[in-house]
Structures are given as C-alpha cells and as structure tokens.
C-alpha cells in the first residue's frame, strides 16, 4: 500500500501507530448511504467476466468492492480526529497462459471494466514468460447468486458521532480520574461491502462489519512513566460489543477483569488508571524460570505469531522470503505425521466461521465457502493454511477458504484465517489454572512481541504482570518478558481452562506481502499454563 495512504497517529502507544486508511474522506452520513443494487453489480461483473474470457482468460474473477471506514480519536479531553473514508471500484483477476494477471479500476463504466479485464489478461500473458509452473486451481463448484452478512445487532456506522464522542470522553475521563495522566482512545469501524463473481458461476454478495476500540493510557510517577493499553478485543460485531454486558466479564481473583463478547470500555479505562498507579510502584521481576499462566488477551498474539504465521503455506514455500520470512514448520515435518508442535493436550484449529470473529465470512475472496480445519491435533502438526492454487502442493483437493484482499484494488492472496487453541473439555476457570501454580507469573494483555523470520525464537511482553505464589496472586510486578522457542514453548503447555473462559482476541491490522496488505484475524483461547519458561527483566539504565 502507498505510504501516503497510512494515517499517522502520533503519541499513541509505543512510539505511534501507522494505520492504513484507504479511500476518500466522506461525511458520516455517506457511510450509511444505500450501497449499489445487487442486480447492477451482477451486470458489471458479467462485463468483466465476458471481456476477460474474450481476451483469452481460462479463469476470471471480479470483485466489486465498496470499503467504508470510520476512525475517531480522542486525546485526553479533546477529539483530535474524526475520519470517514470510502473507496470503491473493481478488481479483476484472471488466469491466461497458466499465469495469474490482475488489474483494477475505480472507473465503473462498462467500457472501463472491459478494458481493465483485457489489461489483466495482458499482464498474465506478459508474466507467463517467467512461468515455469502453471497455476493449478482446486475445483470450486459455482454457488449461483447468494448473499451473506455479519450478524450485527447495531450497525456501528449508524450510531451518531456525538454518541461515539461521548463514549470516548467518558473513557478518557475514567482513566484520567483514576490515575492516568494521558490517554488516547480510538474507535475503528470497518464495513466491507463486497461482491464476488467468477467464471465458476458464483455471484456472492457480502456485507462484512468489524470494530475495534483500543486505548493507550500513560501514568507518570516520580521514577518514570508506565503505559497500559485497553483489554478490549477487535471483533466482527456491531456497536453492541461496547454495551458492557456484565455477564460477559470474567473477574480473576486478585487481578484483572477479562472480556468475552461484550466490552465495558469505561470500566477497563478506570481500572487502567488504577493499575498504572500500581505499575509505577510495582517491584521489578527477578529473572529466571517460571510457570506462566497466560490470559487470553495475551495468549492470542502468542498464537498469532508462533502458530498462525509459521503455518501459512506460502511462507513455508518461500513466497514471503524477502519480506516476512519463511517457516520452521517445513513440509517434511508435516509429512512425517510425528512432528510434536506441542504437548498432547494442544489442539490448534483454523477457521473462518467462528461467530463474532474478525475472520468470519460466508465465502473467501475467491468464492470458496468457509470452514474449520485442524492445524495441530493432539500436539501433532497435521495441516497448513492454503488456498485454491496451493492445496495441490499438500496433496489436498479442496481450498481451505482463506484467500483475502484488503481492497478491490489489491490482488487477493493467502491470508491467515482465525487460528485458535481449543479449550479444555473440562470446564475449568482461570482461577482453577492459577490455584495449582507454586511459583509463577500471570500475564495479561499484549505488550512487546518479537519473533524471528522462521518463527523459532520469540520474546513476548504483556500489559499486566502478577506474581503467583502457592496458588495465589500476590501482587503486580513489572518489567517482565519471556523468551522461548516455539516448539519448546507449546510442548511446555500443561493445562488450560474450559469453554466458559474461552475468549477471542485478534489483530486488526496484520501485515503481509509486497506491496503490503493488511487483514484482520481473530484468535480464540482459554487461560493456559506453560511450565518452566525463561523470564527476563526488561528494565535497564540508559543515558
């Protein structure tokens, strides 16, 4: 993506966030304007399909997209940004001479679409000079005309700006009144209206909604400053996620509140203020080996980095070698059917079907009906994440349905589906997991995450750290990060909580590819224990 399309929110979190905001600025009212009629979209898509076939394409798909965003930022007592954007156009992907070609345009006249389709075929033919291995697509049966919609209760785009501003002001005040000195809170709302048509005979209309409400609070004390981010999850839900339903909250004894399918952002901000004050006074961790209890708000990103990324088949094959890297989880390990990714209680699965998750859609961006499949079963590596042109490499004939493009103007490719850790069949609580630990640390929330380019060695931090002594949380501590190796780490997994503790967090802006594209992906997991992990102290004198 073009650098100019990234909005820079300075003063947010650790050194600022670069966030992708594609499209043109529009008014809030235009976010809820009527989308294009389905019949009109079908007509335009057919022009693309016919023009590409006439130019010599053996396969063609067309994606007509209208992508809407609303981002609102509040810093302390003021609203610093209200941004509404819209981006609309058509992306046409073809196979000609056994090679992919792609072209896109925002000009939706019939002429322009036909020309763009021909251009995509020309690109495919030009690139076919380098092709040594013609594209092999796993079969997909056309589904005719179907539609799918994220099951939202309250369309976030329809909530007034004033209500959103009021919520963020209440959040900021709650943090500032309870011990924070600075806070930035943000609402990110996304609506993808996308229509997919292919030469396989599918015409799929989808209306996808996502929401994320993070905050970043700072507390300043005599010895320095500390930061605490919100524990809300990015979700595939409407504004109802921010209703703060108390039945969706999990109180951990002596520690934090966790959030399932409803988030009380004001409560979390208030507790962030209080916890910042505790962080400023907390003692620094003694480095060494500890049993770690990882809460779902934290563990989700560990799953993302150490399971989600290494099991992307394009990384395994080397297509991402020059950017994100390759993977330790090579094909020989998968073929052996004996590679112990984790201990035998570790079951990791992929899906695009969990309700309320970021990855939840009816069909992926190449018209494949979404599903769930196992990646690691009883600790053994059993599968990867693959799309139509990849599954033949792992001897399968059905795509996993995890193809995605961030917009109509970017070509779709394999992206991470939701990747989650199955909860214990026994419905243990987080407190049940903590009560057996003699000398441990309970880590909450996502902090600093770093992992090597083949996903072996990682070092992860968190937001809140609690010492566990003889089965009880004693006090907040600071400066904790753990270092491990992916396989060793998952093999040290000894116990996890059950379904009622299962929470789904995620990454709203996961980057991949050159030029880079973002996607949103969820990770579900319960509170989980890992034994004998190396903990380092991140405090250091400088300057």
């Amino acid at each position, binding site marked *: 993506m073009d650098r100019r399309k990234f909005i820079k929110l300075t003063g947010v979190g650790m050194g600022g966030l670069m966030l992708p905001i594609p499209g043109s600025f529009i008014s809030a009212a235009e976010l809820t304007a009527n989308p294009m009629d389905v019949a009109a979209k079908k007509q335009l898509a057919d022009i693309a399909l016919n023009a590409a076939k006439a130019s010599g394409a053996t396969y063609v798909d067309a994606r007509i997209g209208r992508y809407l965003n609303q981002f609102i930022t509040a810093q302390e007592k003021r609203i610093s940004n209200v941004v509404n954007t819209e981006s609309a156009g058509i992306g046409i992907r073809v196979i000609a001479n056994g090679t992919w070609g792609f072209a896109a345009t925002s000009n939706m006249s019939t002429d322009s679409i036909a020309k763009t389709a021909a251009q995509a075929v020309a690109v495919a033919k030009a690139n076919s000079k380098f092709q040594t291995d013609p594209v092999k697509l796993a079969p997909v049966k056309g589904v005719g005309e179907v539609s799918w919609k994220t099951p939202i209760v309250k369309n976030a785009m329809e909530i007034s700006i004033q209500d959103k*501003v009021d919520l963020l002001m209440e959040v900021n005040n709650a943090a500032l009144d309870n011990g924070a000195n600075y806070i930035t809170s943000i609402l990110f709302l996304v609506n993808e209206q996308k229509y997919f048509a292919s030469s396989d005979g599918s015409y799929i209309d989808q209306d996808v909604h996502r929401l994320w409400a993070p905050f970043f609070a700072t507390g300043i004390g005599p010895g320095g400053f500390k930061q605490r981010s919100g524990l809300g999850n990015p979700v595939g839900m409407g504004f109802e996620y921010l209703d703060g339903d108390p039945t969706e909250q999990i109180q951990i004894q002596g520690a934090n509140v966790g959030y399932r399918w409803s988030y009380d952002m004001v409560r979390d901000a208030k507790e962030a203020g209080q916890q910042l004050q505790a962080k400023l006074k907390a003692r620094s961790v003694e480095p060494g080996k500890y049993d770690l209890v990882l809460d779902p708000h934290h563990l989700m990103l560990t799953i993302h980095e150490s399971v989600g990324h290494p099991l992307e088949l394009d990384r395994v094959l080397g297509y991402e070698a020059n950017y994100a890297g390759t993977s330790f989880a090579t094909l020989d390990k998968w073929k052996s059917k004996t590679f112990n990714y984790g201990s035998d209680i570790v079951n990791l699965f992929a899906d695009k079907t969990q309700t309320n998750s970021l990855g939840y859609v009816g069909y992926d961006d190449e018209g494949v009906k979404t599903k769930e499949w196992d990646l690691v079963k009883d600790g053994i590596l059993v599968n990867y994440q693959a799309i139509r042109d990849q599954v033949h490499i792992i001897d399968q004939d059905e795509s996993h349905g995890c193809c995605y493009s961030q917009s109509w103007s970017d070509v779709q490719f394999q992206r991470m589906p939701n990747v989650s850790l199955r909860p214990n069949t026994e419905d243990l609580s987080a407190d049940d997991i903590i009560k057996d630990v003699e000398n441990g640390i309970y880590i909450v929330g996502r902090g600093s995450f770093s992992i090597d380019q083949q996903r072996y060695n990682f070092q992860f931090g968190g937001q809140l750290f609690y010492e566990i002594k003889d089965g009880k949380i004693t006090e907040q501590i600071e400066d904790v990060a753990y270092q491990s190796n992916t396989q060793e780490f998952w093999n040290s997994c000894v116990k996890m909580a059950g379904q009622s503790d299962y929470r789904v967090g995620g990454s709203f802006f996961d980057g991949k590819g050159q030029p880079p594209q973002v996607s949103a992906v969820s990770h579900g997991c319960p509170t989980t224990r890992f034994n004998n992990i190396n903990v380092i102290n991140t405090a250091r004198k400088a300057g």
Partner: protein
Amino acid sequence: MAIYTEQQAKELLTKVISFSNADECECNLDGSNTGNIRYARNTVSTAGEVSDVTLAVQSCYGKRTGVATINEFDDASLKKVVERSEELARVAPENPEHMPNLGAHKYSSVNAWHQSTASVTPEDRAAAAGASITPSKKNGLIASGYLNDAESFNAVMNAKGMFAYHLSTNVNFTATIRTEDGTGSGWVSRDFNDVDKMDTGKASSVAIQKSMGSVDAKEMEPGKYTVILEPAASVTLLGNMFGNMGQRGADEGRSFLSKKPAEGEEPVEGAPTNRLGEKMFDERVTIYSDPAHPECPTAPWSGDGRNVDKTVWIKKGVINAMPNSRYWAEKTGVDYMPTAYTGGGIFGGNQQLVMEGGDESLEDMIKNTRRGVLVTRLWYIRQLDPQTLLYTGLTRDGTFYIEDGEIKYPIKNFRFNESPIVMLNNIEALGKPVRINGSMIPPMKIRDFTFSSLSDAV
C-alpha cells in the same frame, strides 16, 4: 495525468481556493506513477503499475476543520470537494490546538527528480529481477526480491499566499537469496532517487556471497560483543529513537528526553522539562536532517508549508534540537522545529536522517577489528521500555564472527536487547555513511552490544 508540473499544480490549486468560502482553506495535491515487480523461488510472482492523483481540501471555520478528497478535477468536481470540506468543517468538533494557516515562505532548491527513474518500464523491471535471479540460479540458490519505483509530486497552497511544490523520483530494491536446503541466507537493500545508480545484479552479488557464506553457522554464546552494524542494521533503531525525540512527549514526562527531578527531590517551578542541551551520546554522534542533501534529498518544506532547512538534532553528542508542532512551540515559547514533509499533513513516510561518520569503508572496519560480530540487518524490532528506549529484535540474513581483521565463520542468529542510547555511547568507530531507506548512515563499530539468546532461524 498523475504528474503535474509546478505551473499546472499552481493553476489548479489557485482555482480550487477561488471556490472557498471558509475562514481558511489549504489544499494538497499529490500524484504518483508507481511500478513494482516481486519475485520468489527464482520466478516473478507479481507485477503492477498504479497511477494516482488526489486533491485534499482542508477548510476551517474558527477551530473547526474539515477535510475532503477527490480524484476528479473538472470545475464541478472541484467545487464539490470544496463544499464537502466546508460541510465537514461546520459539523466537526472544535480542536483547541488548531493553528492558523501560514503565509508565503521561501524554500531552498532541491533536486530529487531524475528522468531515468521516471522512464522505468515493465521490461526494465523484469530485467532488474532477471539480473538478480540469473546469478542466483547459476549458484544453485533461490532468489526472492522486490523492486519498486515511483515518480511523484506534492504541492500545497493556501488562501494566505503559501505555495510549495516538490517533484521527486525514487527506486527501492531488496533481495533475499537463500540456499536450496535453507541453511544459508543473504540479503541486500538499495535505494536511490536515480535508477541509473541501481544495479540489482551487483547488489544481488552481495546477497549471494552472504547466502553461501552463511551456511553451517556456528553457535556462539549470547552475551556482550563488539559488533559492526551495517547501516541497514542500525537505521531502524536510529529512526525509532528520532521518533521518540519530540519536545511535547518530553515536556509531558513521557519520553527518554523528559527531565524530572531526581527521586526524593521536589519539582522546581520553571525548571527545564526536557533534556535539550544535555550531552547524552559519544561526542562523535552528530545527526541532522537536510532536505538539500545531494544523496538523499527530500521536500524542503514541512506539511504546513514552513521552509525546512538543515537542522542538527544531535551535535557532538548533545541534544541540539527537538522536533515539535507549531502549537507546542507557541505554547512553550520556543522556536518551531518542523521536519520535512514525507507525504502529506497527517500521513507520514520515513524521516530522512544524516549521521556523520568517518572515512573507513565497511571492509576497512572489518580489517581493523580484532574480535567482533558483523551484523547485516536487524529484524522484528520492538520497543521494550520507552523510558530507556530498550528494543528487542533479531539478527538476520548474514551474521559473521570476525577475528584478527577477517571474517572467520558464519554464526547463528542472535536476539538482541539493546538501547540506541547505550549503543551511541559505546562507539568504537564510525565508517563512511551510505544511503539506506532515504537516510545516510555510517557502518558503526559498537562495543558491549547485548545479545540475549540464540535463534535457530536462517
């Protein structure tokens, strides 16, 4: 048409402003022609070209601001985008930190555009990829890489008479070349304004050499080592440090440049709130920005149209200047210290930094090292502590042990936990600066660089 000449941009923006009815009106016109080619597994995977030009109009009523954008430029569309920005401004919440538009300024002359780069064709890109793939294949290696070229212009004008224009070209290339069995990996990165300076074949030979040379890496114990950081290995750490040098964060007590009373001492009214003027680094450390630098020129103006000339941020180890906003400068009664425009008011790109060095080449530095570790690049860099700027990350694509002035053998990659503040206090030697990511950075020999664990990644 995606590239407007200065005269064309001036005419269009003058027309846009003539449609304005707001208290203030400022417009940005940005256009680019970009092209790219990506390859992996010794074959081209994707290629594309994008042309885009966007007009953004910002209208203000008092402290209320609205921005609207458009990519159609007939009179009706121009009127529509002005009206839309005015509608948005009327309903926007007041921003108490809003600053009035600036008037006319004079800018230094900068040459960042080259016909050669503006004329790159898809065939040229394919040839550039081929020049990397062919020698890799010949050596039984697997190449992957990415080349991106752009011709772009940026123009800004407001109703108070300010007009700034910048035309530039850029080309960026990276390649990762690996052995077939995955036991060796080498990497290279080059970027220029003039594509005639770009030789992807020559660059790839560096990655090929590192790839073959990194096979059978030996394990070394983690610990503190003397390292030679190639410019690609330090540029991100230095950029991150610069990103944390803002005056406001320091004054507010949330930066490594905050000045606080020592523990147990009471704050004194009027005492400095930041560390401007303090010596924090080795006296060989001088870092500045200069839009007119011949090797890595940038726009000679900031996002709000103020002229930006050479600014020395760190002078002989002393904090000499801290970037700030016009609002914060006025509030604290200090000079406005803007940074060069890197792609739009609220949008940002890499900030150009020029770090002074010496005359030694990387090869000379290796020759003059008794024992040390040569680091090609650092990867997945994340901050651990914003107070000390402690970062973590890993070495990647070519890490070697140096003994008695020679590269002895490849070593396994390390995780590092280190702060650029410590790093810039532990300088043994600085080499000759080279361009990397739009900046000029010297290779650096640093003592006591902290590696905390080993990684099996190649």
